[in-house]
């Protein structure tokens, strides 16, 4: 029963190989000592097969190492027990039925070493020895599976803990008005890193406990703004995002060249982007339209030759608000959620 069935699972096509890669990575990182069972039940060479049966039944195991004077000499499995049962030989010592000189693994080896042994042999369990050759544990495929799952869970929990800590930021800090400000410098024509700031902002929002919809809206709006800074500005610009329990304020600044006709720039499909930029998949003239769709309030101020200041706000509905420790009355209640205000402020003083 603990013997592996005929090698069906060894046929691994590319598809399967791809799905196991993540776990495989962990198989290289994890040490055998981290996944093995170290509370082991051992038998001696003089134990009777009847005791083996009792041990297997009470401990609900299907194999155990046999030691003689502290040294591992064999391993006895369910199959050995069945053979003795078949021969009505339960009073025989383990030494008669055990497999001698079993395959072993070292506790400091990575899990992948044990997996290799399992794949190339028919054994169901491997005794684990330390550097001195002392038996320190036993390893089954089940132990490996559980160990890998635990490790995956740990990875997941680390992100959860980060998220948990961040999401309590507003609750834990008591002030009249708490806000978190994120700032990013954007370089002109740096398409390779384009979107990094937006990506970080979106992640920050999710960690702070924002709903996926809010994170998506904010992410898209900032991304379009970031790409605009990369495409159009002379010297790059700055993205500033202020996160408050009840709203998110996004500001981008640059020092030129400025927009000639703001009204026209806001028109869907209008674009001044170069052919080169269009080849990258941008410059379709939908950027500002997209931003306006994602935010509750957008104001674009631009002076030709001086620069552009884009202001966007997302108001958080009650259920979307960050839990906060704000005391007293909230300011700025005039702009309640829902009162959509897509304003364009033009200062084309050219």
């Amino acid at each position: 029963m603990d013997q592996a069935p005929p090698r069906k699972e060894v046929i691994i096509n590319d598809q399967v190989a791809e799905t196991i890669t993540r776990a495989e990575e962990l198989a290289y990182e994890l040490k055998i000592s981290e996944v093995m069972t170290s509370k082991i039940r051992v038998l001696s060479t003089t134990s009777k097969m009847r005791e083996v049966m009792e041990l297997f039944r009470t401990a609900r195991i299907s194999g155990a190492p046999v030691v003689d004077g502290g040294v591992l000499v064999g391993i006895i499995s369910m199959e050995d027990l069945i053979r003795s049962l078949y021969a009505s030989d339960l009073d025989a010592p383990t030494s008669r039925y055990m497999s001698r000189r079993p395959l072993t693994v070292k506790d400091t080896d990575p899990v992948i070493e044990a997996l290799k042994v399992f794949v190339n042999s028919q054994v169901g369990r491997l005794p684990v020895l330390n550097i001195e050759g002392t038996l320190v544990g036993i390893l089954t495929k089940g132990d490996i599976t559980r160990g890998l799952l635990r490790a995956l869970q740990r990875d997941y929990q680390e992100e959860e803990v980060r998220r948990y800590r961040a999401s309590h930021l507003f609750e834990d800090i008591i002030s009249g008005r708490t806000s978190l400000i994120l700032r990013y410098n954007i370089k002109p024509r740096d398409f390779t890193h384009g979107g990094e700031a937006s990506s970080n902002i979106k992640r920050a929002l999710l960690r702070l406990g924002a709903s996926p919809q809010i994170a998506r809206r904010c992410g898209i709006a900032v991304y379009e703004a970031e790409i605009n800074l990369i495409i159009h500005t002379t010297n790059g610009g700055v993205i500033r995002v202020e996160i408050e329990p009840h709203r998110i304020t996004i500001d981008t600044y640059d020092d030129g060249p400025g927009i000639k006709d703001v009204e026209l720039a806001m028109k869907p499909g209008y674009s001044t982007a170069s052919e080169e930029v269009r080849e990258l998949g941008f410059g379709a003239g939908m950027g500002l339209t997209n931003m306006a769709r994602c935010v509750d309030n957008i104001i674009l101020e631009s002076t030709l030759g001086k620069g552009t200041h884009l202001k966007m706000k997302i108001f958080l509905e009650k259920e979307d608000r960050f839990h906060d420790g704000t005391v007293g009355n909230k300011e700025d209640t005039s702009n309640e959620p829902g009162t959509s205000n897509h304003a364009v402020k033009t200062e084309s003083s050219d």
Partner: protein
Amino acid sequence: MNVAELTKLVSGKLLNQAADLMREVKGGCGADLMSDVLASIQPEAVLLTGLCNPQVIRTSQMADVAAVVIVRGKTPPQETIDLANKEKLALISSPYGMFELCGRLHRAGLPSLERSVSDGPSELE
């Protein structure tokens, strides 16, 4: 369908290892203009595109795309693959062209997750 099934359906090659192959794909969207993607795509769609630059991954991340299929057997530059790995987003290269791919996926029952401009306000508004 999930990403693994999708890969098979498009006879594709997964280009990055760090992707969740069990992630559910709810529909599809085909576009080469990234602003179009941001404007039209609904969450959890597969994005079919001929663009290979890293912005495809950034755009996908912003738009909650479930997987990216590069059409006509193109191989994107390493930066794109690296970014896809970092963001754990499946990046698949398929030998078929855009039209063929849209047809195949639609026939397999994958609905369109593209909104038309005339569809009015999306969940974003």
